[in-house]
């Protein structure tokens, strides 16, 4: 068979020489290699204190977006749920009442919006499917939890803070700060 690369090295079957049979030079060589690693830089990122920088295109936890006036953008069209290959998204739609114009941007909104983070594969198809720019994937990832129930994120966890009433938290969630 033709080798695909020239990197492969054949197994040497020739009997070992006396120096090789002593093993000691080889052992010392190995020990020198491990010793040299004492002085190498550690690539460890000490997690809770240090965090790995994510690229802007990282697909992490979902965020339900608000517009500039602090109204939820989601109109509960269900396109994200349809687009989701893992069927992680469920929602229940409700009609906006006349006095709720400052809460929801469209006449229809999601009364319940749940993403199962155990099912989600973070592919970002929901983000692409959304016609209202309501859902996007942030640069954080889902933290550990004690129960399976804890991984089903509802609206409280997903909604971004209101830029009107809580601008600081909003800026932080946006990654502007």
């Amino acid at each position: 068979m033709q080798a695909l690369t020239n990197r492969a090295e054949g197994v040497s079957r020739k009997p070992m020489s006396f120096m090789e049979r002593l093993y000691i030079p080889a052992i010392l060589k190995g020990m020198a290699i491990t010793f040299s690693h004492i002085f190498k830089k550690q690539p460890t990122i000490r997690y809770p204190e240090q965090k790995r920088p994510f690229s802007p295109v990282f697909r992490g936890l979902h965020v339900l977006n608000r517009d500039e006036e602090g109204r939820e953008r989601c109109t509960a069209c269900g396109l994200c749920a349809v687009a989701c290959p893992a069927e992680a998204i469920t929602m229940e739609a409700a009609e906006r009442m006349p006095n709720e114009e400052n809460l929801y941007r469209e006449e229809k909104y999601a009364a319940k919006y749940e993403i199962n983070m155990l099912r989600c594969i973070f592919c970002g198809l929901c983000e692409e499917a959304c016609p209202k720019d309501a859902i996007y994937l942030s640069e954080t990832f889902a933290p550990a939890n004690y129960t399976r129930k804890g991984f089903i994120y509802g609206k409280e966890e997903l909604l971004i803070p209101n830029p009107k009433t809580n601008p600081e938290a909003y800026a932080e969630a946006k990654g502007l700060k």
Partner: protein
Amino acid sequence: MTLLAFDWALLIEKLVLIAVIVFSSLGIALYTTFAERKVAAILQDRPGPNRAGPFGLLQPFADGLKLMMKEEIIPNTSNKVLFILGPGLAMTAALMTCAVIPWSSHVELFDRKIELQIADINIGILYVFGVVSMGVYGIMIGGWASNNKFSLMAALRGASQAISYELAMGLSLIAVLMLSGSLSLKTIVGEQMADGNFWNIVYQPLGFLIFFVCALAECNRTPFDLPEAENELNFGYHQEYSSMKLGFYLFAEYVNMIMSSAVMACLYFGGYDIPFLDESTLAPNIAAILGVGALLTKIVIFIFIFMWIRWTIPRFRYDQLMNLGWKTMIPLALANMLITGAVILWRAGG
């Protein structure tokens, strides 16, 4: 009452010495487990345990607490008495070695000359051998009493390995004994400290190499950790053990490491001798304290080498292990013994 006509001061002195030595070696063993994890981490470009206390220094206590809080499981089909006896034996045998190790010269306290050695018996090094050969029983009894095939296989491996390497160890030792003409560790150390004499490593490099390899095998350390070969025997002879009984087995390995380091330091590296320094010019108490420091430094270096080897070299296959022991180590040790004897005779004659 002849019973009370006894040197009570000596008794108290020895008891205090025993307590200090046993507890300090346990304390060192505690931190050796921590050092093992740190050394492994550093050799593998990792930070290692660093959460419990500053630099993770409280980690051994966290580990110990974890082991104690674990559920104590004794298998139904095991032999209960022997199951409990096993780890105890392993630990006792490991700790008993410290009785003959000369930790330093003597201190003078309350007008008494206190030797920093529990017992200077004239068969010192043979006593170490006797105790080491008892250590096999801890493994064998534990492995057999668990009533588990893996444990039994591991126990048999451990015991056969220990017996095989004890032979080469003894033979390599004979050369040292011929040089110093005594079995007492104190005399062997004294011989190396004397003017014009170098450490035994200068005269016995091959003997030391054999002794060191055998010490690795006796402590069940990599590359001779076949009794604990996880990938073939699950966890080895202590597979059925849990809680502090498991802790005893794991701990005994570290105590063994300290003791074999101490024995090697005494036999080949001058024990509590400080190189390029004449101890007799110092006050005896200061010399004793410096001596303890020197011996501890040597022990720490040896323990580091033990760990360094563990994180470098892969495990032997069982037949390779036996071949190395019987077909390489023993003939080498015999040749070393013959050559040493011939040189000693030639020098004495010439």
